């Protein structure tokens, strides 16, 4: 260990303490400070991990997948370093390693499980040299940052080139763009859904990758679970969905369990998260721990105690109502949340949509027009929509053009004012609260102030 690294780590930690004491969040700040003093901080700290690092990337499901895999690793007595949700750029990854220990400099953990922004993949993988890279899916999200979807896929492909020689890939077999990342000579664990019941959710959604990544021909689907995710084959070159090793084969949302097959074995685990999209997170999480060498027994033990991550459909009591929080950040995710609300079959509820357009949210709100409100509004028994955030009026216009009467829409751009008002409301016993990323953080701060949630380390 060099003096330079020692200084960098301690300066980073102190920056983190000061930032937290003064009430600012700054979950990436320790990484930023450490990297100023020692640009190789991340590379050097990762070398101390006894097993190595896993990078998790893709548009949707990173946080839930990471939470799930972490739970299983920890139950299996593997110490894990993880980064905070959203702190997934290079500074955030560095901050996670810098703050892994309280007094020691080098982490004692066996492994680092790092959710990584797609555009950060080339750099993160170069500095970290991961043992496993897990890719969840590719949807349109924050294209204002990266330009186009194909650019995003290229970033991830460049990251994969930095896998260690014995490294493994974990890929979603049901997303053609992800499955197309497979490389000759790299051991790959595919995962996918093979449910008996048809659950196809329409073709009207914005589909992104309906073309073969190898020859460009339009893919044909035998089954589509949502958007472009399903069982496909290319009529042009004959390429088809790879046969996955990890398969979610059965799901009973009411009873709260799911059955997963790994190779020829089968395990039934508790599973209370709503929606098909979360089944993919289950598959991704299990495939990741399988790729890291864990057994089915370890998986079973770990799953008994799994809880969803903050803001990914967990619920809280506020005033007289139950609030369900679900992050929305792109058309597919929003459609999936609306599908879940339609499934809930509650006779009456309110929906709160909080749309901000700060950098972390994506500054372009055009994607709201790709959410299929036309399809979902008639199937929802929502009696009222509360719309807030910096782009509340865009959201209200979206609902108006989807056919919702203005009498059912309340607009208040000021998020805190809207939350105060909703805290006092007694009209609905259930409110679904659907914020973009920075709006979720603001809601979390407010809930903490009210004492509804425990204090979160991250601001």
């Amino acid at each position, binding site marked *: 260990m060099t003096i330079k690294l020692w200084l960098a780590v301690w300066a980073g930690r102190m920056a983190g303490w000061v930032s937290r004491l003064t009430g600012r969040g700054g979950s990436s700040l320790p990484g930023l400070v450490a990297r100023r003093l020692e640009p190789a901080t991340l590379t050097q700290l990762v070398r101390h991990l006894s097993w190595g690092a896993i990078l998790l990337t893709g548009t949707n499901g990173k946080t839930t997948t990471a939470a799930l895999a972490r739970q299983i690793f920890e139950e299996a007595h593997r110490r894990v370093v993880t980064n905070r949700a959203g702190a997934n750029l290079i500074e955030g990854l560095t901050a996670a390693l810098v703050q892994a220990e309280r007094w020691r400099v080098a982490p004692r953990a066996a492994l680092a499980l790092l959710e990584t922004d797609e555009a950060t993949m080339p750099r993160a993988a170069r500095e970290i040299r991961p043992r496993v890279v897990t890719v969840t899916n590719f949807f349109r999200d924050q294209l*204002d940052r990266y330009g186009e979807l194909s650019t995003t896929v290229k970033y991830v492909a460049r990251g994969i080139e930095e896998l260690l020689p014995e490294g493994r890939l974990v890929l979603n077999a049901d997303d053609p763009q992800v499955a197309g990342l497979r490389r000759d000579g790299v051991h790959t664990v595919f995962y996918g859904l093979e449910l008996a019941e048809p659950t196809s959710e329409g073709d009207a959604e914005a589909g992104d990758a309906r073309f073969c990544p190898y020859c460009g021909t339009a893919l044909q689907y035998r089954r589509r679970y949502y958007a472009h995710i399903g069982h496909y084959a290319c009529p042009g070159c004959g390429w088809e969905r790879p046969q996955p090793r990890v398969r979610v084969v059965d799901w009973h949302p009411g009873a709260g369990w799911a059955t997963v097959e790994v190779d020829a074995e089968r395990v039934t685990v508790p599973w209370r998260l709503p929606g098909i999209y979360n089944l993919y997170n289950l598959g991704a999480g299990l495939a990741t721990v399988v790729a890291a060498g864990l057994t089915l027994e370890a998986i079973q033990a770990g799953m008994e105690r799994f809880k969803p991550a903050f803001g990914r459909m967990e619920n809280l009591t506020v005033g007289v109502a139950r609030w369900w929080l679900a992050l929305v950040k792109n058309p597919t995710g929003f459609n999936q949340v609306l599908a879940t609300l339609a499934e809930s079959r509650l006779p009456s509820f309110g929906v709160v949509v909080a749309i901000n357009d700060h950098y972390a949210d994506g*500054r372009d709100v055009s994607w709201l027009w790709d959410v299929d409100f036309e399809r979902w509004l008639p199937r929802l028994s929502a009696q009222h929509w509360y719309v807030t955030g910096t782009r509340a009026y865009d959201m209200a216009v979206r609902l108006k053009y989807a056919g919702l009467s203005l009498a059912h829409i309340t607009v208040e751009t000021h998020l805190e004012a809207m939350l105060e008002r909703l805290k006092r409301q007694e009209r609905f016993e259930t409110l679904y609260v659907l914020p973009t990323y920075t709006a979720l953080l603001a809601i979390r701060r407010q809930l903490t102030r009210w004492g509804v949630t425990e204090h979160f380390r991250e601001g």
Partner: protein
Amino acid sequence: MPNQRPLKLLHLYPEEMNLYGDRGNVLALTRRAEWRGLTVEVISRGAGQLVDWDTVDLVFMGGGEDSHQARIVDDFLRLGEALVPRLEQGLPMLAICGAFQLLGQSYETADGQTLPGLGFFDAWTEAGRVRAIGDVVSKTELAVEPPTIVGFENHGGLTYLGSSSQPLGRVLLGRGNNGKDGTEGAVKNHVIGTYLHGSLLPKNPHLTDLLLSWALRYRGVAQELPPLDTELEWTAHGVIVSRAKR
């Protein structure tokens, strides 16, 4: 205005050219016609399909990723033989981003090839090094009130207008066609080309109504569009306009 045949809106390449919420434009045109008792029939046309041009009253085409645009470009150039003469005769069209580029003389692909467009606009597009990304407010010379247009640009291409071309607007915020001359988009006859997503039309109801009135006129129906309650749309419009004044 009931008992008329529906307005026919031709939506070109909805599968390939549908980036950044461009379908919101079709929705805005459809809804604002419906709210006035008009019906709109949307005809989606993919590559290789036939068009009954004599029934088309309005054309919309959005932007697409480079790889998707490459799939339709040959078909679009063939389509130009029927489309361009009609645009010259007043058929209204809204062309966003990639579609706007393809209506020009030529465009440069990301790998440096210069390829011909339809040549309807006296304009050409070069590949830029940095993407122009952000909110846009422009001031238009079209006879609409208010004279502002708002949207979100996200393009790598730099478009230059020839001396005979009229821009859709001049930017008060954002980079516009090329980041140098302050122009945004182009207008010729009843064709609007622009880089603005957002979606464009829902937040610019004056443009939506202008396109609808052009479509009615093209079909030979002389009638004014009755006003609608558009307060919400104008408030959303105003949120972006106020960013230009900071």
